[in-house]
């Protein structure tokens, strides 16, 4: 006992753990002595970029986070919003980018497991997953291997635990070649009065470790994988153990059911999952949040390997573990409930007065540090903010001449890997378990029933690295607007958002310039569209060698719908219905478009500008007049021709439309200018809809009508055989990805 033994060669160890000399000095100053090895390990993971947000904090403060529906905002494991009638949903997006490059299957699987536990920790039953995925060039064999592993990993974990995978994205760009983006959003449902908090309550409460045994997997994952050293280490072939955690979906499933039982019986006074940074993180955060301390005896931690060091036990990222705080009189029942589910539950310490973490191991004190210094008082950096300038951004995207063969160009767009519906991916996911998936993959947004009387949520994720590379601030606005518009297209009212900010090194001023611009754009759009950010994730150091990924904010927007049976789909409903373009006229907008890549083979110009008040008016209209429209589908990647084809194919119908004469034909078909929705209306409702659009001041224009024939006729421009398009799409991605059974 006594004080922890000083680490031998602490400066060298600190450096190896990724702590800067200044950070090391602060640790010594906080403790008033040389830290122990366990303490150094603890500070290194807690002060890592991943756990502390040290480079992003000063910018994230500018995001709007408040709204009348927000029950829990950023800072907890996940946001919680009120969906009415005493029901709430929790939702958040997380990334598992680096692990998914190192080991695609386990990286993706544990990404799913991790975000599910965040939602579970809030007291919610996880009810839906969405996976926005970004990979390198699909023609590259490495990309194919990573895509296959990631998709199998998501399915392998998600399918086995009874949480449906209901949507997401699949996008490709060479900038993600050595650094795929694997983001996962989870939604959970809970009674509004049963929110659990990751906070200690009273001294004497027992700390109970629930779930898997602790091993050496994933040690230092948070500090190392998401760090500057990752690339060099990965390329050199790591001498040590793999840093990627290994998932056990069965244990994850048991943890879900066990925790829900503990919540229902109100047996816990606090709970925190163990994701990045392990036991040290859970203990420090729960103690710090309450201004209390915690005593742990690390000898009691069940381990699955021999001779583990104290720092290894503290920092292990072994999966499927939770740290629960339980008042002593409820301890027996907690242990009995866990035992019934066949899950390990072990008391390892208790909440104590004071503010310190006091951990012992093999007869020695190994950690004696203020909890807040680890959890809340990590370094905050004002990284230099430079100018993000894409080399192509100065060009005029819309000045290029029209293509020689417009129909061939349109076919290239429709078979682009970002446009083709990734049915072969969806078919590997269970999207229906839970009996709540009213709209699954393939719609504007997933629509999930939450209550038996039909109240539900709509959720969409969107990102667009090409727009954001050309202009991060505008790109972020467009991405938020698109996700919210997708939600509104179903008739749901967008109420909140979660963000996954995928960027390269924050130590590069230009990257921080892109980051700062992204936050500005995102703040403006979230503010304007009424979707405050309730939580999310920042993932830095996404680069291949020195080559950064495109700045890629991915946004998840959640909306509420009173009756899921009334939710609107994207498919045309009946031949003879009128087709309208509502929101804004089509404007030139090929900067960063799919057309530009597929046809011109470049990335240049600026993304189209967005008028946020017009966007807000469009979305309000879509929500208020949900029942008057037969279908609604937004115009985004691939332009209006993509939207029309999807609405036709989804409805098994065709269409005849007249293009707007104000723009050139290729622009009309493929421009990605925002604030546009293609809606269909039965002739009976047309006058009512038109009058409502006029009254709301929302721009609108008749485009044509729905037909029974499987063709899309764009008058005076081209006619597409939709069966042919569908079959070309069905084979194109399969072709691009090689070994897939489409």
């Amino acid at each position: 006992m006594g004080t922890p033994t000083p680490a031998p060669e602490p400066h060298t160890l600190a450096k190896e753990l990724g702590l800067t000399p200044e950070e090391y000095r602060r640790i010594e100053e906080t403790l008033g002595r040389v830290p122990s090895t366990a303490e150094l390990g603890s500070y290194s993971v807690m002060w890592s970029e991943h756990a502390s947000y040290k480079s992003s904090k000063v910018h994230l403060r500018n995001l709007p986070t408040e709204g009348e529906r927000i029950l829990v905002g950023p800072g907890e494991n996940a946001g919680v919003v009120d969906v009415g009638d005493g029901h709430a949903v929790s939702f958040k997006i997380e990334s598992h980018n680096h692990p998914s490059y190192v080991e695609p299957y386990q990286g993706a699987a544990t990404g799913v497991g991790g975000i599910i536990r965040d939602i579970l920790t809030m007291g919610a039953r996880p009810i839906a997953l969405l996976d926005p995925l970004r990979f390198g060039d699909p023609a590259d064999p490495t990309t194919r291997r990573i895509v296959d592993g990631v998709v199998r990993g998501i399915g392998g974990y998600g399918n086995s635990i009874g949480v449906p995978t209901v949507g997401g994205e699949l996008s490709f760009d060479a900038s993600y070649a050595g650094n795929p983006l694997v983001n996962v959003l989870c939604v959970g449902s809970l009674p509004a009065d049963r929110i659990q908090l990751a906070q200690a309550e009273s001294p004497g409460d027992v700390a109970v470790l629930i779930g898997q045994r602790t091993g050496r997997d994933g040690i230092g994952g948070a500090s190392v994988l998401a760090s500057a050293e990752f690339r060099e280490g990965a390329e050199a072939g790591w001498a040590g153990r793999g840093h990627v955690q290994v998932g056990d979906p069965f244990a994850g499933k048991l943890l879900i059911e066990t925790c829900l039982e503990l919540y229902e019986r109100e047996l816990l006074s606090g709970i925190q999952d163990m994701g990045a940074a392990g036991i040290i993180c859970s203990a420090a955060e729960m103690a710090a949040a309450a201004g209390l301390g915690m005593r742990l005896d690390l000898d009691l931690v069940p381990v699955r390997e021999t001779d583990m060091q104290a720092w290894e036990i503290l920092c292990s990222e072994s999966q499927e573990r939770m740290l629960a705080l339980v008042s002593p009189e409820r301890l027996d029942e907690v242990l009995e409930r866990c035992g019934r589910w066949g899950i390990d539950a072990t008391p390892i310490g208790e909440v104590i007065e004071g503010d310190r973490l006091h951990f012992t191991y093999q007869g020695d004190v190994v950690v004696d540090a203020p909890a807040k210094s680890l959890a809340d008082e990590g370094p905050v950096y004002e990284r230099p903010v430079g100018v993000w300038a894409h080399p192509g951004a100065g060009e005029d995207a819309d000045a290029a001449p029209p293509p020689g063969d417009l129909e061939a160009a349109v076919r290239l767009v429709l078979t682009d890997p970002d446009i083709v519906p990734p049915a072969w991916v969806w078919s590997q996911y269970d999207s229906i378990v839970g009996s709540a998936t009213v709209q699954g993959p393939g719609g504007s947004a997933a629509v999930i029933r939450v209550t038996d009387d039909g109240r539900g949520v709509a959720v969409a994720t969107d990102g667009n690295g090409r727009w954001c590379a050309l202009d991060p601030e505008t790109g972020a606005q467009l991405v938020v607007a698109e996700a919210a518009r997708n939600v509104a297209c179903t008739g749901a009212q967008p109420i909140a958002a979660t963000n996954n900010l995928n960027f390269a090194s924050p130590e590069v001023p230009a990257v921080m310039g892109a980051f700062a611009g992204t936050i500005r754009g995102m703040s403006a759009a979230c503010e304007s569209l009424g979707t405050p950010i309730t939580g999310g994730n920042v993932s830095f150091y996404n680069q291949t060698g020195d080559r950064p990924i495109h700045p890629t904010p991915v946004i998840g927007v959640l909306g509420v719908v009173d009756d899921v049976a009334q939710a609107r789909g994207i498919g045309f409903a009946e031949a003879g219905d009128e087709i309208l373009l509502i929101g804004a006229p089509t404007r030139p907008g090929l900067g960063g478009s799919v057309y530009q890549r597929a046809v011109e083979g470049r990335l240049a110009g600026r993304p189209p500008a967005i008028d946020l008040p017009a966007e807000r008016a469009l979305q309000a209209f879509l929500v208020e007049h949900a029942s008057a429209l037969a279908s609604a589908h937004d115009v985004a990647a691939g332009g209006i021709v993509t939207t029309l084809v999807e609405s036709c194919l989804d409805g098994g119908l065709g269409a005849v439309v007249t293009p707007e004469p104000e723009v050139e034909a290729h622009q009309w078909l493929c421009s990605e200018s925002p604030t546009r929705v293609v809606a269909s209306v039965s002739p009976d409702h047309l006058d009512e809809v038109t009058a409502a659009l006029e009254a709301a001041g929302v721009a609108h224009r008749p485009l044509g009508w729905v037909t029974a024939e499987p063709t899309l006729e764009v008058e005076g421009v081209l006619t597409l055989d939709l069966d042919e398009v569908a079959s070309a799409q069905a084979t194109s991605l399969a072709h691009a990805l090689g070994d897939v059974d489409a």
Partner: protein
Amino acid sequence: MRVGVIQFPGSCDERDAVRALSHLGAEPVLLWHGTADLDGAEAIVLPGGFTYGDYLRTGAIAQFAPVMGAVADFAERGGPVLGICNGFQVLCEARLLPGALTRNEGLRFIHRRQALRVETPGTWLDAPAGAVLDIPVKHGEGRYVHDDPDGLAAAGQVLVRYCHADGTVDDDANPNGSVAGIAGVTNAAGNVAGLMPHPEHAVEALLGSTDGAKILGAVLRAGVGA
């Protein structure tokens, strides 16, 4: 009518089965795998999922759960038992149904809407032979194998086969390489049935199809007759 839905560790679709049975007017009750007691149930459903993680062969461990002894006795006495997906796998492992289920031919998990042709309605189906049902499949190990599929059919033990929307049974309609396109079978006595498709996910038009009611609804009547 009281229907017991067995909850194993790793079951995923037990709440769906309960919901669907309630929707059809039954009184479903969850039965815990560790208790050898059927709680007065007049019919038993083994739901889908990944019992014990299915890290060994699917259903290989669940067959030894204490409740399975009670299920075997119940089946022996002629009580109706239906296994769905993982429940089908468990019943095959427990030798309450003939044949076995192995990894899908394509070695991938597959989820899709699936047309099924009714072969032998028996007491299990509210649809005539030859009728086509629309019921989803979602599984990684659903390839049915049996040494004598023709004999099985001749004995009236083939419940449904994978088919096209027009009822044609061929390899293209077969999602997993099952022998003779077999999607569901019964035991010789006809009171135990299993199928890979999920009727409990097809009882509400809002969620895509109501054809599952033609199977689950029959479970209720099968129970009454027992």
